[in-house]
Structure formats: structure tokens, C-alpha cells
């Protein structure tokens, strides 16, 4: 790799870090969530509502956030359930330890455990995550208010409205599960079998297995179909370019085929975040290069 500047360890830039440590460390934990929220809001604007006649809430994919933020682990921390996130870091004596870590000193190392992070977005019930089904790693994120509004709008006038409202009331404040099994539905949520059938009929739940259901977005079938077709078309555009690579700005400016129903930028964030194309920084901007071995 031709590097004009060598990689330097953080420790050797110690003096500079100390000066701005005061601003960066305290600012970080609050800024992290705000950053993610603003990125989500930006991605929501890229979603084409009119395509689905306004019946679908704006859907953003979790890996689209990776294309906007460098640190994937930090993004995951904000979005994934916080109680499964407990890394142990081994800090050496000189590194400044952010406030939300606790330190236990063992015989030779200081092991630092992070407290269960304030996962503002999902714990507060602001954000809902869904398993879309076409890829085990592709998760959809929807703002809870949008989801509730659209679902109730779709259910207006139908008999299942009451059950759906009850379900949403239970779901939105605290629950961050992607799927539910029968005991949970019957015991915790106190739904009856017929009510569960109504929920499946309304599209809020999708069958996963005998006795368990995925949380889903009603009318999302069309979304998934257009999404997969559009993704394939955009990847094809990158592949067919000369040398299999294209500048990001140029791709954004290209005319989309009829296969691509979403905005180009939406698809570009998706393919960069899912690492279906290689992202290379050049002097003329970001270059997207087709990666061999991708059958998508």
C-alpha cells in the first residue's frame, strides 16, 4: 500500500490529545447518539415515500449508517440492544479512560469494563429494528412514531384496529425484540390466539416458525422487492463501468434505469455500508470499485 504518511500510534500524538481531550471525551457520549440520530434523519429524507403511496413508514437499513460513520462498533452500540454489549478493554497505564468505564486492577493488567451503555435510541423506544428476511445481516430501522402512524393509518376502518393498537402500545415503549414466541405473546402480552391471528393478518407479525413470529412492517413486501432489484441494478452499473469502478459523484449523477425505484443516494449508502463495493479515497473524491465474488 503506497502510504505517503506513515501510520502513527495514538500514544505518540499524546500532547495534542491532552489538549483537546477535555472537549472530546465528555462531548463524545452525548454526541454519539445525536450524530446517529441526525444521520438517520438524513437517510430518512432519501427514502421515497410517494413510491408506496404513503402507506409505508420511511425505512433505513442499519448498514447504511456504516457508510456515514467510520466506527462500526460505535454505531452498533447505539442501535443494538445495550445489554449484550459489554466489551472488556485492557487499558495500559497512560490512556485516558472515558468516564463511563469502571476499572478493576488485577495482578498485572488493568481490566476496564464498560457499564451498560445508555442506548438512547432503542431503549427509549424511539427506534424499532426489523429483520427483513432477505439477508440475515440486513436490519431495517424505523422511527417508532412513523411506524405507529403508518400502521394505524393502514388499519383505519378495519376490525383488527383495536388489537393492533393494543400491540403497539405494548411494543413501543420498551420492547426491543425482533421476534416473539408464543409464550411471550400469551403470558407477557396477554394476547389470545385469535388476536395473534389478527395481528398476522394485519401484517404487523410475520410467521417465522411454528409458534414464533417476526415483527414486521405491513406492506413491506413491495419495498423489499424494489430494494433488491434496485441494489442489483446499481451494482450492475458499477460493474459495467470501465475497469469496474466509478466515482461516487458520477454514479449519483447517472440516469437510473426503470429497475431503480429509490433514490440513487439511498442505494449508494446501502452498497457502501454492506461492503458490496470497495470504497477508495482518491484525489477526485470517493471511488467505488466492484468487488469480485459478490453475487448480489
Amino acid at each position, binding site marked *: 500500500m503506497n502510504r505517503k504518511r*506513515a501510520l502513527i*500510534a495514538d500514544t505518540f500524538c499524546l500532547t495534542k490529545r491532552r489538549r483537546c481531550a477535555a472537549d472530546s471525551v465528555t462531548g463524545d457520549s452525548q454526541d454519539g447518539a445525536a450524530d446517529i440520530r441526525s444521520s438517520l434523519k438524513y437517510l430518512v429524507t432519501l427514502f421515497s415515500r410517494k413510491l408506496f403511496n404513503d402507506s409505508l413508514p420511511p425505512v433505513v437499513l442499519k448498514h447504511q449508517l456504516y457508510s456515514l460513520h467510520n466506527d462500526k462498533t460505535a454505531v452498533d452500540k447505539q442501535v443494538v440492544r445495550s445489554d*449484550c*454489549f459489554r466489551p472488556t478493554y485492557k487499558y495500559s497505564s*497512560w490512556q485516558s479512560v472515558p468516564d463511563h468505564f469502571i476499572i478493576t486492577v488485577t495482578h498485572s493488567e488493568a*481490566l476496564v469494563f464498560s457499564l451498560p451503555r445508555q442506548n438512547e435510541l432503542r431503549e427509549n423506544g424511539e427506534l424499532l429494528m426489523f429483520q427483513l428476511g432477505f439477508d*440475515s445481516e440486513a436490519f431495517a430501522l424505523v422511527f417508532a412514531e412513523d411506524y405507529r402512524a403508518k400502521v394505524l393509518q393502514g388499519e383505519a376502518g378495519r376490525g383488527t384496529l383495536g388489537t393492533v393498537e393494543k400491540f403497539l402500545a405494548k411494543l413501543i415503549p420498551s420492547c426491543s425484540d425482533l421476534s416473539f414466541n408464543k409464550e411471550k405473546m400469551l403470558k407477557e402480552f396477554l394476547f389470545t390466539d385469535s388476536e395473534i391471528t389478527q395481528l398476522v393478518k394485519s401484517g404487523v407479525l410475520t410467521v*417465522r416458525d411454528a409458534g414464533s413470529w417476526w415483527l414486521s412492517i405491513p406492506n413491506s413486501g413491495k419495498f423489499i422487492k424494489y430494494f433488491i432489484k434496485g441494489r442489483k441494478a446499481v451494482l450492475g452499473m458499477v460493474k459495467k463501468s470501465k475497469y469496474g469502478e466509478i466515482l461516487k459523484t458520477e454514479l449519483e449523477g447517472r440516469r437510473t434505469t426503470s429497475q431503480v425505484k429509490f433514490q440513487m443516494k439511498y442505494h449508494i449508502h446501502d452498497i457502501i455500508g454492506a461492503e458490496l463495493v470497495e470504497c477508495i479515497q482518491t484525489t477526485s473524491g470517493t471511488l467505488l470499485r466492484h468487488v469480485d465474488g459478490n453475487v448480489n
Partner: protein
Amino acid sequence: MLSFLYARQSGLDDPVRLRRAESTRRVLSLKLNHNRDVDRIHGNGINTLDIEVIDGRYMLSGGSDGVIVIYDLENNSKKPQYTCKAICTVGRSSRHVHKFSVETVQWYPHDTGMFVSSSFDKTMKVWDTETLKPAEEFQFDGNVYCHHMSPVARRHSLVAVGTKDPKVQLCDLKSGSRIHILQGHRGEILSVRWSPRYDHILATASTDSRVRIWDVRRASGSLFTLDQHNGDKSKVSSEAVNTAHNGRVNGLCFTADGLHLLSTGTDDRMRLWNSGTGENTLVNYGKVVNESRKGLKFTVSRGCSPEFVFVPCGSSVAVYGLHSGELITMLRGHYNNVDCCEFHPDYQELYSGGKDCNILAWVPVLRQPGIEDDETNSKRGGTQAAINPAFEDAWSSDED
């Protein structure tokens, strides 16, 4: 750097700090060096490398042609240009050579008098380094993908062997017996690794997408299975519950302190686990390209802070920060797929071998001296500025 030296000298800092900082700087500046070369003996791809722990001087390599070579890594010539010579080989002409590809080689952890190699010819051979003849040979029913001896064990000398059979076999070097079996996996065992912290903890990875941690002293099954979702059954489809990866798990590596375990899988992901509790630390490394049908051999640095993971990715070696998950750099230099890499902890060098039959040595770049430096500077002790050659006195003689 000077501030570190001064701080160490005056007692402000722990001595370890300077060592860690300098090791990290060296690892970050790994590059191919035209002065360092490794003898090219293998005629076919290189599958495995191992550097002995005691001196860090001798390196073993096993190739797809069944050949095993021992190299001397130490530079005794006084010149910077050095080729690591092959001291001895178990070549195709030897009577005891493996018939098919050698998949794993490992030095005996306590001295270099012995090494163990396992191969696709369904055997595992324990060699005497002096005579290069096998002292012991273990026969198996299926291809042997990997084996590992515990680096810290004093009370036992068990070799864990992973073969096509879902049962992990433990062979005892002292008695030659192989009756101890670990049952629990449902697919071929692609990687086995002993913990460097406890001599009874073993991790195994298999094609059934599971990684199991065993305590070999227990009679019952595994201690636990690593679950990528940390018990959150709601996230996955029901078949994928309790799996470590969404594909075959083909690489395992413990960190040097044994507290964390890394696993790579054919779902192009690498995961970092807490080896004590089996929890997924959810560090996201992104897409770690992995197309290997056999085991993948990767390694973690030692003595740096933060630690680095070196993973063969296609025809280059990817360097990731262990706890941050960011891709630091890609080491490009091989002409074909890289199969294995090994880190030399004393010199912070990386040796990688692949299908192009080359072993490349990635050497840290030395600190660059000042801009005006040339040979005259080093003779004067480096304190005076060098004189431009045009002004050098090349005509007056000393007799004046």
C-alpha cells in the same frame, strides 16, 4: 520518543510503557523490506507457519506438497541484506514424508527437539528434529485439518486434533494413547486451539457453525457454545440459534493473555469473544473476506497497545485493531492467496505464506534519521549537520 525515554529514566513511567509504545509503532510501520528474504523451497503453496516460542529463532513451514522446512530467522551475517536460510527439510525424497498436503505444523512448546505435523494423508506425525524421522505416528479415519498442543501445559502433553470426524480427538504424547474424545460437534472440525491462559481449556470450531469451549478435565460435554447473538434468540431464524457464525467457522485465535478469542467464518465476519463467559463483544470488523474451505490461520500481535489482528484476506493480509474493529491497513505483496501468517513477538515482524510458494517477511521500518543525513553524519555521531559534498575538502592533504 525522547519523552518516553526520559520518563522511564526518571521513574515517571513504568518501563513497560515505553516497550508497548515502541512495539505499537513498529507494528504500524510493517512493510516489505528488500533486505529480508526467506529461502524459497516449497514447490507448492504454503499452508502453515510456526515460530518456536523459546528463542524465536527457528520457523517451521508446511506446504501443499507435503514438504516441511525449517528456517533460521536470525541474522548472523553482519550485513543488512539477509536471506533466512532453510536449515533442513523433510522433502519428497524422504521416506517418511507426508503423502499429501501438510495442513498444520507446530513446534513442541518447550523445546525445539520435536515438532508435530498433521496432513491430509490422515496421519499426524511427531518428528525428532535431529534425525528428521517420525518418532510417533497417529492414524486417523479422515483428513486431519488441524492440531494444536497447549503452549502452557506442564501437567499434560495432549495434542488436540480436528479431523473430518465430528469428534475432537486428544492424543497423549507421553503414552501414545488416543482414547480421549470430545463429542458435541456435528460437522468437520476445522480449527482447534488451546487457551494460553489455562492448560485445560480448549476451543474448537466446526463446519456446523458452532464454536465450543471445552474443559478437558470434565467427563461431560463442552462448557459452552459461543453464541453470536448472546442469547438473544429473537434476532435470528430458528435454525441459526446458538451459532457462532452464519457459515462454517474456520479460524480460531486466542489473544496473548487468553482473555479473548477471535473466530473467523465463511460468512465473511470475524468475531471477538470474551473467553471466560463466551459473550460476543460485538466489535464490528466489517467484511473480512473468507473463502477458505479449510482452516484459516491468523494471528494476533503481542506486547502492543492496542493489539492488532493479522488476517489473511485474499491475496493480502489485513491488519485490524483488536478492540476497535477498524481496518488499519492491508499488507499487499503476495501474488496469490495468503493462507497463513505468524507474528514474531520479539522483533514485531510478520511472516506470511501463501499459494504463490513465497514466505514474505514484513519488517518494521526503522526510524528515519534527519533529512540532511548521509554516511558522514553517522560517523560523526549524528550531532553535526552534514556538509554538502560540494564543499567538502577533498584536495588538501594532512601533511600541510
